[in-house]
């Protein structure tokens, strides 16, 4: 019998209303295994509000507050202050927001929370579009991806702009700890969640969380596609602690980005030439990442 590589505690209940094969459902499950039972979670409007709250039920075994989409950062600053006033400083405060609610609508609030040096963990689960409202493009949607607001017909070829660099924005605020995580690598995920929980001060997670209906793939492929995102270099796994960057999943040879792109309907229209362009960009950013890691 193999040893469990994740703690057995389940703080997400069954019976939640995520789609079959939902990446963000795995993200919450792994995160709470790391932060533990003494955690409160603030969730803004997103798929996760619906996942957790089929009225009158709740899918979390710990307190959750439902936050306006633009206010996740502010809400966790407030929760922290309230808990400290109640002498409950040991309670972990977590904001758990989507990409749209983070890189677009809630960006000011996130920036404020980081700048105030709030002792809390802000988690952005990135399914790369506004999924709960039916797959609209967000600032975090990758270039070329089909969404309902970036159609593929006639001259239109999906999203025309590159993905916003949220890690760059967050790192400019000098958090005590920031990391990228992927639901396809739960052990790396858990280690980072436990590490974040052991630190004080502003912390940030960028979690890749594949979405079967939004990315147009079969519900049994979530983990396979997640692995490819990292192993092609599209979504590298790294952490930055007090400014020092470390790649946590080392890769020798990157897998071809084609392997990742070709299995998702949202990229179905991309030509070989367009995929080659992505390949070059990914190789350049991977090389840049390794250089940053080598810096003292």
């Amino acid at each position, binding site marked *: 019998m193999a040893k469990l590589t*994740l703690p057995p505690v389940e703080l997400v209940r069954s019976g939640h*209303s995520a*789609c079959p094969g939902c990446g963000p459902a795995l993200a919450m499950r792994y995160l709470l295994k790391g932060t533990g039972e003494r955690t409160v979670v603030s969730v803004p409007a997103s798929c996760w509000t619906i996942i957790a709250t089929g009225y009158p039920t709740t899918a979390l075994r710990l307190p959750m507050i439902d936050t306006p989409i633009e206010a996740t950062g502010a809400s966790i600053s407030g929760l922290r202050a309230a808990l400290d006033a109640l002498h409950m400083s040991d309670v972990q405060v977590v904001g758990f927001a989507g990409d749209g609610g983070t890189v677009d609508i809630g960006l000011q609030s996130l920036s404020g929370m980081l700048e105030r040096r709030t002792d809390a963990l802000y988690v952005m689960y990135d399914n790369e579009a506004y999924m709960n409202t039916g797959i609209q493009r967000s600032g975090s949607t990758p270039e070329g991806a089909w969404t309902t607001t970036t159609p593929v017909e006639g001259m239109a070829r999906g999203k025309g702009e590159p993905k916003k660099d949220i890690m760059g924005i967050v790192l400019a605020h000098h958090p005590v700890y920031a990391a990228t995580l992927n639901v396809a690598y*739960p052990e790396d995920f858990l280690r980072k969640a436990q590490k974040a929980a052991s630190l004080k001060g502003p912390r940030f997670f960028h979690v890749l969380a594949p979405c079967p209906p939004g990315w147009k793939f079969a*519900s049994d492929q979530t*983990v396979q596609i997640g692995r490819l995102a990292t192993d092609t270099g599209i979504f590298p796994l790294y952490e930055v602690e007090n400014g020092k960057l470390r790649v946590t999943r080392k890769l020798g040879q990157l897998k071809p980005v084609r392997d990742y792109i070709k299995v998702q309907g949202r990229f179905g229209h991309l030509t070989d030439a367009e995929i080659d362009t992505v390949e070059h960009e990914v190789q350049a950013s991977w090389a840049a990442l390794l250089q940053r890691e080598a810096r003292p």
Partner: protein
Amino acid sequence: MIEIRFHGRGGQGAVIAAELLAQAANLDGKIPQSFAFYGAERRGAPVVSYARIDDRPIRLRTAITAPDIVVVLDPGLVEVAPVMDGLKPGGTLLVNSPLPPERFPTPKPAFVATLDATQIALSHGVGSRTMPIVNTTMLGALSRVSSVVSLSAVQHAIDEHVPARPAENGLAAIEGFHTVRVAELPGLPGGKAPSGPVAPALSSEVPEGPIASMASDVLHTSSWRTLQPVITREKCTRCNFCWKFCPDNAIDLDSEGFPVVRNEHCKGCGLCAVECPPVAIEMVVEGGA
């Protein structure tokens, strides 16, 4: 005026089915209407859509509570959703099921028809194994069991309005037309009434304290699935990968470390089967054909 109600699962094409039926009826010279019940349209969750067909413009805009025809796109829904509610005496119930029509007694006498639309759709490559899209097959069958629309109008509507694989969808509709079986059932006073919706009845009192404090485990989300995992214990190496990657926490480990699927919560996503290194898990059609 004929009123038709479709019951499906998010992703199966129930909303498109109502739209396509309306387009087809329009090609037949009728004046149709179609719309969907607005809810959380999760892939796999029960959804409802409606169509009305008449020779004159329809002013009514309300949900259909007393349908002439009910079309059920997924066999599992008969057990978990109130599909037969309000079905008019002498109306028609069309169910996607490999079972004979006699197996679906209606509360009031009605024509019952069945066909294995999942198998037909899959054989024509319409949809995927995890989510076969049966709407066009069911419309073909509907054109056989009722005069509400003609098969040729269904085919034309598919050609014009189905962007992916119109030819395969058209063939599936024709096969649906030819394979559907009909039985007329007398009213069965002892007939099994449909069980209520999956969600518990909403309490009229707002609970004290937290707004929502009932554990979500009471919701049996397996009603969403079309496939279910079957674990072969002899092949299992107890690596617990399936447990690790289940997004619904629907796999428990027994005292010896063997995985056990909690069938009331598994949504049938298939992740456990794909991630199982020794391929000890197989996804089979829910309920078995």
